[in-house]
């Protein structure tokens, strides 16, 4: 594998991991914010309104930056892996269209939810918030179908054999459904833990409890979805299954330990919150939950190396899909990576001031 192909693979991996960190935070917190905004409107609950707004700050700060990494994934794919991009768009047209439509609804709905808060009728605002929250789950509904095809090319295989477009066939891929359920439960769980950690900084016991109920509840659901996905990998993607259990076994073990720790600490924190206190471990639940997500994504994608696509017992190497139409200017690629790190520093500074130093007030400035 030459330098350009390796950098393309590694860069793609980095972009996917960073994107997944942000979307894991925002999909779950978005759902929680919509739920409590709605409760506030229905029950005239002032705390619920404040909590929803407080949790929503995570989205307003990080959703656009999360989107940047989605764009970076696309450019890495199209620029470094021309064949796989052309093949995916020609065969997985419907899943990609679903993902794009969901992105188109989701991102403006976030900005609209924040900036019209207090300016439009609460019932209409609640509806916009629900649209924002639910549209987010359409994005993995599209893109996870692409990931499932990379590990078990059912629809793509049909296309390559017959030349016919597979239409909705990606959704008949058994790996998709277990991956999607695993993903949805993970992001809701992470969102709950992020909300709990964030509100713990504000000493809001009720907020901590609300976040933990969601986080712990969906982590418990993962006890079923995680093994189910692992089992389905064994059935439909034996190469990936073997890599996860052998070469990447240590990382898999660390992930399982992290999940176990999250379960224990989450339970203790929930018990404390129910008793009206904030457990000291609460603030560590968000980083721990995000670590499990990162570990899971590295296992899911990195374990394919040096292949990009796995088909049963055969792996298709990255180089088969790589861009050889130009000699990729590596200095330019390093400059780009350096500037992307700069953007991460700037974003982290903004997020620190917004969420930790509370520069973004819950109540908008009216004067």
């Amino acid at each position, binding site marked *: 594998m030459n330098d350009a192909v390796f950098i393309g693979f590694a860069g793609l991996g980095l972009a996917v991991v960073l994107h997944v960190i942000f979307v894991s935070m925002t999909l779950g917190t978005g759902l929680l914010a919509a739920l409590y905004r709605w409760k506030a409107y229905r029950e*005239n*609950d002032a705390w619920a309104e404040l909590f929803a707004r407080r949790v929503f700050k995570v989205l307003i700060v990080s959703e656009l930056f999360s989107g940047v990494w989605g764009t970076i994934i696309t450019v890495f794919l199209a620029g470094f892996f021309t064949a796989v991009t052309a093949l995916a768009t*020609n065969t997985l047209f419907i899943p990609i269209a679903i993902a794009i439509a969901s992105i188109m609804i989701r991102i403006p709905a976030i*900005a609209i939810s924040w900036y019209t808060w207090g300016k439009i009728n609460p019932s209409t605002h609640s509806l916009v918030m629900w649209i924002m929250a639910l549209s987010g789950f359409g994005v993995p509904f599209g893109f996870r179908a692409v990931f499932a095809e990379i590990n078990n090319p059912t629809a793509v295989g049909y296309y390559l054999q017959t030349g016919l477009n597979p239409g909705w066939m990606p959704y008949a891929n058994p790996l998709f459904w277990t991956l999607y359920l695993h993903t949805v439960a993970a992001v809701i769980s992470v969102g709950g833990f992020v909300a709990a950690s964030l509100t713990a900084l504000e000493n809001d016991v009720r907020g901590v409890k609300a976040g933990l109920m969601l986080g712990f509840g969906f982590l418990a659901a993962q006890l079923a979805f995680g093994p189910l996905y692992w089992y389905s990998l064994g059935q439909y993607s034996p190469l990936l299954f073997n890599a996860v259990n052998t070469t990447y076994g240590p990382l898999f073990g660390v992930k399982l330990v992290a999940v176990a720790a999250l379960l224990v600490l989450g339970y203790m924190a929930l018990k404390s919150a129910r008793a009206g206190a904030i457990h000291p471990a609460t603030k560590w639940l968000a980083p721990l939950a995000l670590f499990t997500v990162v570990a899971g994504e590295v296992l899911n994608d990195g374990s394919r190396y040096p292949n990009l696509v796995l088909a049963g017992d055969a792996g298709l190497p990255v180089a088969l899909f790589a861009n050889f139409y130009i*000699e990729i200017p590596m200095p330019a690629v390093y400059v780009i990576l350096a500037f992307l790190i700069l*953007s991460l520093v700037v974003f982290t500074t903004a997020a620190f001031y917004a969420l930790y130093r509370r520069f973004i007030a819950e109540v908008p*400035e009216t004067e």
Partner: protein
Amino acid sequence: MPDPSPLLPLSALGVYFHGVYISLTFGLPVAIGVMLWKYWKTGDKDFYRAARLMTAVLAVNFALGAITGTLVEFGLVQVWPGVNLAIATFAFAPLALELIAFANEIAFLILFIVTLGRVRPPVSLAILALYAVFAYFSGVLITAVNSWMQAPWGVGPVAQVLYPFMPEYGPNAVDVPKLVAVKLAAVATGQPISLIVEKPGVAQEVGVVLKDPMVAFYSPYALVSIFHNIIAAILIGLAVATAGWAFRYFKTGDQKYLKIVKPLAGVFAVIFVIQAPIVAHFMGEAVVEYNPTKFALMEGAEKTYYNPIIALVAYGDPNKPIVGFDQFEKACLSHGDKTVGDLIKAVGLPNTLTLQSAGLTVDFSKIASVKLADLCLQDLQKAKAYMPMIHAAYYTKVAFAIIGGLAAAVLFFYFYRAPGLSALATAIARLFGDERRRVFILAILLVLGTVIPAVAGWYVREVGRKPWTVYGLLYPSELVTPVPYSTSPGFLAFAYLVILAVNIGGLFAMYLVATREYKFLELLKKGAGVRP
């Protein structure tokens, strides 16, 4: 070949909506910067409030710009997957560098929003300036890619081989036989290019097609387009901001809004002076040189004719003729009896091309007898069909740009005193009624004088290069998706519905953010323990 016609308007709709938000993304930072500057210098809170409100509008607008950008980007790779070959070659460097621009643009915008009002105005101005630098850099790079599609810099004489009336596009940085082979493979098989490039291993087998990946940056067409497009977008954003505050002044008569309109109108006029007579002129010259058919369409030149004014503007020489399609047809006929087979021989391609990795064998003998002159003339006929629309769009653009320029001048000299000119401006402005009405109407003319030229100008730029998507090289049908239901009524209805609903809803939301007061904050204030 699949018929791309149902997808062209869909793509255009996405691009136009993106254009709306990009204009505000480029113009609003200037307007916000002016307000912050005034606030810093005068301490007047009205300027700070104006900056804060425009920042809220910018945030919603940015989200819409980002998603329509995503739509355009995915539109390229999904609806026009043949473009993947361009992304892997000529567009690689601009799009890869665009990641720098996009990521930092968003990071600095978030930092600006988070810190506005919490740090001193000069610090906010510095963060805003950094955001704007990356936003404009993004515009530079995307315009470079679009310009390559208008004038494919780096292919040297390749386009000229089939179309003798076309110029050379810079140095020859391509492997000509490979580029011609890809094009002819699409023609001979009747398949879009994506069906060739999607096959695993094809890129490895074909090898290097473009020798200089940075070549798109050296294009003079790109250089002038960058200035032309970015300044146009800034002007639109500024015009909309000016009109928004002028509307508030019109509705309320409150002098604080007039105070905001004045510096915005001033900055608009200064930038307009750079755009209209200088940058637009160089843009016109680039079109004359690199897009001969587009220029003929703009000027309605079915036949070559003489017009000293147009010739002076276009060539700097009133005696030169406006070259029409008759001359292009003559150039096509200069091919004589040469055929595609002769071209294949001249380039050194075999009669049968085999791509083992793709399992593809292309028999060029099917198209070998086609005459080059016939192909050339066919494309000219296709181009000529666009003449009435392009001609009308171009002159509509010119007319409204003149209206915008006049309105800018009147508003400028109405606000800023200059002997003689201000008296004239005031006399003209009075024709529109009292001060509230005259400021509002002039501001509306600024909007019309920038938006309509931009809409018509983009139409001329994009449709004027037809029948090619990449001028002189590739047709839309060679780049379009082969997925059959992409043109089905169901998919098209779904796509139009999502695009229209999101964009119309988004624009309405921007209007609400800009105009509505906070009316429903009691519960939130109660929750936060804020006393009413």
